[in-house]
């Protein structure tokens, strides 16, 4: 890659800080720490006046890497980004940025209500280090993108909130830095505005630009980033592939478990070496009022590996292991899917043609169902596993939210997913990719 490196306004050169050109390091963070002094009365009483918002954070970012910073509120995400944006100074450690950088911590920063949209564009662009000549070249594109139209020469105080947001993002979206730092800016504005943001983000991040993206939206991080750092209490908990880090974070914070194991192992599970006759006896013994029991369940990816997260254009498999303890009840598994709001999305009935009478005999069974690619929407999905007799309906066992997994989309070939030309997030729990047949009908 042929990088043209420039400095943003105020960037100071330092001879001793040269990038490793072999690896094209763009960001080099070394043991960054930030301490605040608490000034509350409680802090003074307890004597604990130091609060470390960031502790010994180190990482390197290569050209074209897209890093997502995730973590709870107060984890240090925004502090890290503010230090890298030079808005605040670190208490210890250092960082080097190689290349022109621009940060967008807030949409519409510095708008003067009494000035016109056009005047504010020039001011905002200067804040992001753009020259007047650059602005002259881009101003029409910015105005067009913002859809402000004839109001561009009216004072910003007459704009609606949406218009201000659009104008702010429009300027930011036309900055052309090599290192782009964004903080939650995609979560503002109405749906149409977010659509604009996401579309432009796809363009920006797809152009081999180095990105540092702070967000509470794990979906957005999965979509835009290929690497993630999980911060907690100012420290790096995990740094790695975006899928691994997001999986671990969601598993830790959202109680997502891709596998379910019955808490009490049944006698049959403890006697795997038992003979068929012995097992039949064990099933009789275990029944004791119960007719069926779920042993385990898990979600797997296309390679049959347990997975907490799945790409939206990949198939998912759900495997259920269960014991039928009483014969003749035509027991069958049932699966309920709920979205992250707990809303029921759909129920899957057992339809395996090889078992037309369901499970009428005692024994241990393993069944796998396959979810087609491009069925579920992005986000977390909870799966309730049940064992039922279908007609008349009797629920023998239901394990609510037994397993959960997240579905994510990565930027790239939009023809493989049900995105079309939409840039925004899709509502609802499903996002099926359907076939279309179209012909002219005006002949």
């Amino acid at each position, binding site marked *: 890659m042929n990088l043209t490196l420039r400095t943003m306004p105020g960037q100071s050169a*330092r001879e001793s800080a040269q990038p490793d050109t072999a690896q094209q390091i763009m960001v080099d963070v070394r043991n960054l720490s930030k301490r605040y002094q608490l000034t509350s009365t409680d802090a003074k009483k307890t004597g604990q006046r130091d609060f470390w918002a960031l502790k010994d954070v180190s990482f390197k970012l290569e050209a074209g890497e897209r890093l997502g910073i995730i973590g709870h509120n107060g984890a240090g995400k925004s502090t890290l980004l503010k230090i890298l*944006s030079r808005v605040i100074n670190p*208490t210890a450690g250092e960082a080097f940025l190689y290349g022109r950088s621009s940060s967008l911590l807030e949409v519409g920063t510095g708008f003067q209500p009494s000035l016109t949209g056009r005047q504010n564009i020039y001011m905002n662009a200067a804040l992001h280090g*753009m020259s007047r000549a650059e602005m002259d070249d881009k101003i029409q594109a910015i105005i067009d993108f913002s859809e402000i139209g004839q109001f561009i020469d009216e004072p910003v105080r007459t704009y609606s909130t949406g218009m201000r947001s659009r104008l702010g993002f429009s300027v930011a979206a036309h900055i052309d830095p090599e290192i782009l730092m964004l903080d939650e800016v995609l979560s503002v504005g109405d749906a149409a505005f977010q659509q604009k943001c996401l579309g432009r983000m796809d363009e920006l991040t797809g152009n081999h630009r180095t990105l540092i993206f702070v967000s509470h939206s794990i979906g957005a991080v999965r979509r835009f980033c290929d690497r993630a750092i999980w911060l907690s209490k100012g420290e790096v908990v995990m740094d790695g592939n975006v899928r691994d880090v997001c999986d671990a974070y969601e598993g830790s914070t959202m109680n997502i478990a891709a596998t379910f194991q019955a808490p009490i192992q049944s006698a049959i599970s403890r006697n795997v070496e038992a003979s068929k006759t012995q097992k039949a006896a064990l099933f009789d013994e275990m029944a004791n009022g119960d007719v069926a029991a779920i042993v385990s369940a898990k979600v797997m990816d296309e390679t049959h590996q347990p997975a907490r997260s799945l790409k939206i254009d990949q198939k998912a498999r759900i495997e259920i292991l269960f014991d039928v303890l009483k014969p003749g009840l035509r027991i069958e598994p049932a699966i309920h899917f709920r979205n992250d709001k707990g809303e029921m999305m759909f129920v899957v009935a057992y339809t395996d043609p090889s078992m037309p009478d369901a499970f009428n005999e005692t024994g241990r069974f393993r069944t796998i169902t396959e979810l087609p690619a491009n069925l579920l929407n992005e986000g977390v999905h909870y799966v309730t596993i049940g064992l039922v007799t279908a007609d008349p309906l009797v629920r023998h066992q239901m394990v609510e939210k037994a397993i959960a997994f997240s579905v994510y989309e990565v930027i790239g070939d939009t023809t493989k997913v049900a995105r079309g030309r939409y840039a925004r997030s899709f509502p609802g729990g499903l996002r099926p990719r359907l076939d279309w047949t179209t012909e002219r009908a005006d002949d």
Partner: protein
Amino acid sequence: MSQKPAPPAVHIRPERGAGVLNPLEIWKFRRLLRQMISRNFQTRVASSPMSLVWGFIRPGIMTLAFLFLRNVSGADFGTSVPYGLHIFTGLCLWFLFQDTAVQVAGSVATDSALSQKVYFPKVLSPIAMVLSRWIDLAVISAAVAIVQFAMGVPFSLHIVYLAPAMVTLLLLAFGLGVLFAGLMIYHPDYRKILETILYLGLFLSPVLFSKEILPTTVQEYYLVNPMVGILSAVRGAMFEPELIDFFAWLVAAGISVALSLAGLIVLSKAARNSAEKI
């Protein structure tokens, strides 16, 4: 493939030292500075289209009032030119100085929302504010020149001192303003102290009278008020060439520079201190 020169880097590290003013960094942010100057001016005009005219209307009205009082009382203020011209010049300069100092003091707070989201040297705000007043200087100078011409008071070659004298005035306003900009970060009530100082200063400076009416011994100590040297320099450049006190002007310039440096140190420390506390 030819070896490219090593690219420069932004180096982020804990701030050390006074961090007063880095001219190189100001230069690198010149485009933003230019935009901020333009913004300040445009904002003023948008919120008060007559703002430039008020720069001489307010002193003009006060001049008429003081002329009335002087004619009624018959007091002698020791001026060698028509009293109206003397106080009109003084009041124009004083209000310019006062408004500039107050606006410079408030500039950091005004831009605080901006500086929390985008990096730029904090000192850019007061610098932009003081530089955006250049047009007021021009308007006031023109107004004084018109009044002087109308009164038949001749111009001299000393007019060449006008620009440096005005620069000294703005430097003093910048120094006082930036000092209080820093102090106001520690405590907002410093704004009231600044306003009180400026209110008293109007009567303690030779705005409404000539310093020549004071006893000679007092005049020596009077030079610690930097407005003495600045007002004598401006009036001397315009219409009282024999009264230019270069020593007083030098003292005023020295005080303005010292005040500016002290102000920058206080601002830098205050800004860093506030950024470390939550």
